[in-house]
Structure formats: structure tokens, C-alpha cells
């Protein structure tokens, strides 16, 4: 009985890693598309579909575990954290897809205008990767680093915003273009927040304390 449960738990673990790697790939592709070309854009929506499918799979696995095994303590935390994490991962997939969609419209974008956003995307990719690494290793220190790194992304977002404001001030005709770029930057900023959420659920599943709570 316990054996079967253990097996299902490790299956859950593996599936979460798989889903996480899809998310990583999706945002990597979106940032590559932003920096270099638009060839890989189609793959992002494919990945998004895969991520959504994985979300449903993991969801039903979690519910099955909750109903049939009635886990307690650490196991319960792990499963409920998984349920929360997949929501954030799914959001990441969505955001990446949205970014790809906007990039599709920006055929005449300037490499220089994008460089700040690409840099920002680099931060968020690292954050997502590290949050999944933290999950794999159940490493609360790494998870905490991800949570702290969010400031960097926020800072980068502000920088992008300033640059875009300056761009509009210089040439008001660029307004629509600048707003599209701002949307992309905003999506990356949101992805950073999702990574923070994942990391804080990792902390919860290890320690039982969720962010903002004090230990009882």
C-alpha cells in the first residue's frame, strides 16, 4: 500500500519536473525569438498546449492521491504544493505564448530596443530554472534566492519602462510599438512572479511554512 503510494509520489515528482522543463523551454524560445528571429514561435504554442495537458494530468493525479491515500503531514504538503505549483507553471506557459504572439506582430522591431527586455528575460529564465532546481533538490536556500531575485526583475522592468517612455517622447509615432514592447516586458515580470510563487511553494512543502506566515 505504502509502496504504491511512494511510487505515485515519485511519479508526481517526475511529472512536475517535466512540466517545469516545458515551461523553461517555452520562455527560452520566446526570448530567443525576441533576440534573434521568429522561426521558433510556433513551437511556443505547441509547448503551451503540452503544459496545459500536463497540468490536467498532474491535477488528476494529485486529486487521486488525496482521495485514495488520504495523505498527512509532509506528503499532504507535497501534494497540495504540487497542486498550487502547476497553476503557476501553467501561467508561465500562457505568458510565454502571449509574448510569442506579440513578437509575431513586431516584425520591424529594432534589436537595440529589445536588448533591455532580452536581458530581463535572461533574469526570469534563470529564476524559473532555479525555482525548478529548488523543487528537485528540495533546496530552501535556492528557493529563497529565487524569491529575493524578484527585485532584479522588477528593477529591470522599471528600466525598460523608462527607456520606452524616452522612446515615445523622442518620437510619438512609436507609441504602439513601445506599448507592445512594454506588454512583453510586463509578461516577463509576471513570469518572474510566478517563479517566486513556485519557489515559495517549495519552501512550504519542505518546511510547512508558506511565505508571509510565521511559524506556529
Amino acid at each position, binding site marked *: 500500500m505504502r509502496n504504491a503510494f511512494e511510487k505515485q509520489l515519485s511519479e508526481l*515528482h517526475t511529472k512536475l519536473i517535466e512540466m517545469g522543463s516545458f515551461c523553461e523551454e517555452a520562455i527560452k524560445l520566446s526570448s530567443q525569438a525576441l533576440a534573434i528571429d521568429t522561426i521558433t514561435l510556433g513551437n511556443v504554442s505547441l509547448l503551451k498546449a503540452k503544459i496545459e495537458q500536463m497540468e490536467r494530468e498532474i491535477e488528476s493525479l494529485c486529486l487521486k492521491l488525496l482521495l485514495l491515500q488520504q495523505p498527512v503531514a509532509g506528503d499532504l504538503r507535497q501534494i497540495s504544493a504540487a497542486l498550487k505549483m502547476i497553476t503557476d507553471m501553467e501561467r508561465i506557459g500562457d505568458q510565454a505564448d502571449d509574448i510569442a504572439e506579440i513578437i509575431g506582430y513586431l516584425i520591424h522591431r529594432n534589436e537595440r530596443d529589445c536588448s533591455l527586455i532580452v536581458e530581463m528575460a535572461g533574469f526570469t529564465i534563470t529564476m524559473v530554472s532555479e525555482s525548478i532546481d529548488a523543487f528537485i*533538490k528540495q533546496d530552501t536556500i535556492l528557493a529563497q534566492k529565487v524569491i529575493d531575485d524578484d527585485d532584479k526583475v522588477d528593477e529591470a522592468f522599471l528600466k525598460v519602462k523608462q527607456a520606452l517612455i524616452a522612446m515615445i517622447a523622442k518620437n510619438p509615432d512609436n507609441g504602439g510599438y513601445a506599448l507592445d514592447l512594454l506588454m512583453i516586458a510586463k509578461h516577463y515580470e509576471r513570469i518572474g512572479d510566478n517563479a517566486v510563487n513556485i519557489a515559495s511553494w517549495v519552501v512550504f512543502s519542505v518546511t510547512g511554512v508558506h511565505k508571509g506566515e510565521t511559524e506556529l
Partner: protein
Amino acid sequence: MKMTRRIFKAIMISVISSLVIGTAMAALITYHNYDGAIQNSLHAQLQLASSEVESSEDLPLSSFRSKDFRFTLIGPDGSVLYDSVADASTMESHSTREEFIEAQKSGIGKSERYSSTLSEKTIYEAKLLSNGSVLRISTNQKTVANLFLQSFEPLLIMLFIVILLSFFLARRLSQAIVGPINRIDLAAPSADEAYDEIAPLISRIRDQNSQIASQIKTLQQRQDEFNLIADNMEEGLVLLDRDKSIISINRAAERLFHVSGNIRGENILNLNRSLQMQALIEKASQASHCEQKIEIDSKVYQMDASPICFGGKVSGTAILILDITQKSLAEKIRREFSANVSHELKTPLQTISGSAELLENGLVKDMDKPLFYARIRAEAARLISLVNDIIQISQLDENTPMAFEDTDLLDIAQSSARSLEQHAARNGISIRVQGIHASIHGVKHLLEQLTFNLMDNAIRYNKPDGSVTVTVSDSDGKIMLEVKDTGIGIPKEDQNRVFERFYRVDKSHFRETGGTGLGLSIVKHAAEYHHASISLSSTLGKGTAITVEFPKSI
């Protein structure tokens, strides 16, 4: 099934059954004897009484009163004449009684009758007297059932005590029997300790124990051998089970995935979760061999996944990891080289073909024709020098053995300077060759190529009114050739790459300066052929100095 319980059960069953049977047999035999004794005494009493009655005619029958026996005198017609217990006149006729009829018939009659409760039976014996009347004697006797019932309570107590006693004894006994078997040390059984009957079993166990131990030892040895080989392998090796968990991972793979400690049993995705890895393992789990290039830490690895099949089913995966960073880099350079070569060859050919086409169609004015001829010739010459360079470099690539001879480096430099004199003068550059005569055992035309190309570059990338200084010196057992110019210099970020084929620092203006782009590459190869080392120092805008250091003894 427990042996102790079984033995205990057997003992108890035999004790109880023998007890029951024994008691029953004893009771029956006793009863039988008792019955016989009563009948005998009855018979004797009857004989005694009858002889008394016969001898004295009017004996008062009332003298036959007895506690144990009852006498009845029955007349020939069956009427009761006398009874020692009841009043004779009230008794019914005994003519139908069994013993009476039998006595009348054969002189003696016997019968038994049970009382209504079956707890007693009455034994009768009758004797025909000489006067035709019958004397009957009878006694009451307890039946078996009654006897049994009477002795039931003590019997039960006795039975209980015996069973209780045998219960404890049986327990002790069965434990004592099983004890030696339980005490056998299975790790090192000794045949003397236990029963002779199980001695063969024990010796068998002992044999198998030693067999198992030796097999485990062999297995352990093999495992150690395997681990030793795997750990000393340059390639990474990872074995996965059906659930993609790690069974075995060697040291190279551990280094590569940045893991340490015991990670056996962990899922492979914990080490690397890239999509390529997932695809690789997924494919291998469907029983087909698969290769995948995966980049880790900016190094390229080739991962070969082979399914491990057992009985037609995939029971695991073996992944072999090769570092192909160098190989893929070389491949990239080769690809770039072929692309560059075709491009370099195509450009002059296009000029030639275009110019020739214009001439052919008579589109060129007569006065312009010499210009076109000159261009065709120049481009053809360029093509020839390019092809020469390529031949040179592919020869060097092939490492074909060439004839070594003693060559004077200063002489070579001077002859190169002479052939470049005109070229230099056209650009207003002065060449100076200085130093000592130093002899090198080497391939002469390679050394000429080396010096020529270095000097050619020094002139080509110089400033107007600049100078080129070639110095041959001998220091520390090494012969140095230094070519120093006062040219434009090489930016720092390009200094490492100038020896690559077709690499140009200034990609947009190289056509003006000419050259094939292979010069320094040839220099590098020629130097390598002579085991010489090249060092480059350059300051942007001030000039470049390239030093080739030849070891004296080649």
C-alpha cells in the same frame, strides 16, 4: 504450521484417547467380572435354598429372609406360594415368567429384566423342585450406565487432573523435542548438535551456505571490476531502470551532471531535465537506440541511449555520454572553411566571367579593353595564389612527410625581402633584415612560406611610410624570427583568431588590401610542423610584432 504445536497435539490426542479407551475397557472388564460373581452367588444360594426346601417338608420359608436376595416359591400352576419381600397373596400369577417356564421345562431357568429407569436390572434364577413347584431367587444389580453415572464425578476429576498433567508434560516434551532444531545456527550449522535424522539436511545447508558465500564473493568482485572500469572511463555511463531511476552512474557522469553522493534511485530528470534528454530517454524506453546532442555548461555532449532488453521487454536504459566539444568545434571550423573557400573562389571567378562576357559581346570600348584584360589577369592571379595557398594548407593538414634540410633563416628572410621589395616600395614601406646567420633543420619551402607570409602581412597592413623589421636571433638555445611592423595593429579581441583560416579583422575592406586570408593560417601550420611556437604582441595603431620561436634541435 508450527512443529511444537503439532507435536503437542499428537501427544495430547494419544494421551486422551488412551485414557478414554483404557478407562472404558477397565470398566467393562470389572463389570463383567462383577456380573459373573453375582450370578455364581445367586446359583449357590439357590442350590442351598432348594436343598433346604427339599429336605424338610415344612420348613418355614420365612427363614429365607435376606437383605441381598429375594426368594419366591411358585406353585406348579404359577401362583406365588411365598415371597420374601412382598405379600404372596397379592401377587399375580408367575406362570408366564420366562425363568418359570424355562425351569419347568429344563429344571433350571434364568432371566434378566431391566427396571423401567434402566438404572437397575434384576437377575432371576429358578429351579424346579421335586414336588413340581419352582423356587426362584432374584437379586437387584446396578447396570453399567448406573455404575458409570455413579462414578462419573470422581472419574471426571481424575480425567481432568490427568489431562492437565499431560498438557504440561506434553508442552514440555514438545518443546524439548523441537528445542535442538531451533537451536541450530543456520549461519554455521553443525551436524553434531541436533538429531541424526536431520544431519543430512544440516550438511546440505552448510554446503549451500558456503556455495552462496562464494557466489556472492564472485558477484562482488565482478561488481567491483565493473565499477573500477566505469569509474576510470573518460566517457560518462549511466544505467537506468524501467522507471528511469538511476541504478548506476560512473564518476565521469557524476562530474558532468554536478552531482555527488548517493543518487542511486533518483530519477534521471533530477540530473538533467532538458527536452532533448526527455526525448532521448523516451525513445530508448520504446526499445530503440537513440543519439542526442546535449549542451551542458557550454560543452557539447553526445548521449547514446540504448535500451536494455530482457526477455523481449525493456527493463532499463544505458546511456553513454561522450564529450564531443572539440569534435563539434572542429566540425564547425571545417564547415566555415568550406563556406569561406567557395566564397573566396567564387568572387574572382565572377569578375573574370563578367569581364569576359562584356568583352565577348563587344560592349567594351577599345580604349577600355586593356583595363579589362588587366582585371581578368589580376583576378586569375589572385585565384591562382588562393588555390596555391589552399593546396599548401591541405598539404600541411595531411601532414605529408617532407624533406628536412639545414636551412639558413637569415638567407630565407633576405630572399623574401628581395621578392617583396617592389611591393613594399609601391606602398612606401622600407624593409630591414637584421640579425645573425642561424641554421635550422627544416623544410625549406615551408620556412620560405612562413617568412614570406609574415612579411607580406607586415607590408599589407602597414601605414604609408612605415617600416618592416625582420630580426633573426639566437637566444637560450632557441632561434627566433621576429617580424615587426609599424602598421595598424590588431585589436585585442581579434588577436586569438587571426590565425584562423579566412579570418579577417576588418571584414569590410579586405578586398582593398588583397591577400587570400590564409597567410597567417599557413604560418601557424608551418610553425607547428617545425614544433615552433608563435607569439603575437600588438598595439592598435602602433604596430604588430610576431615572433616565431624554433627549438634548435628538431
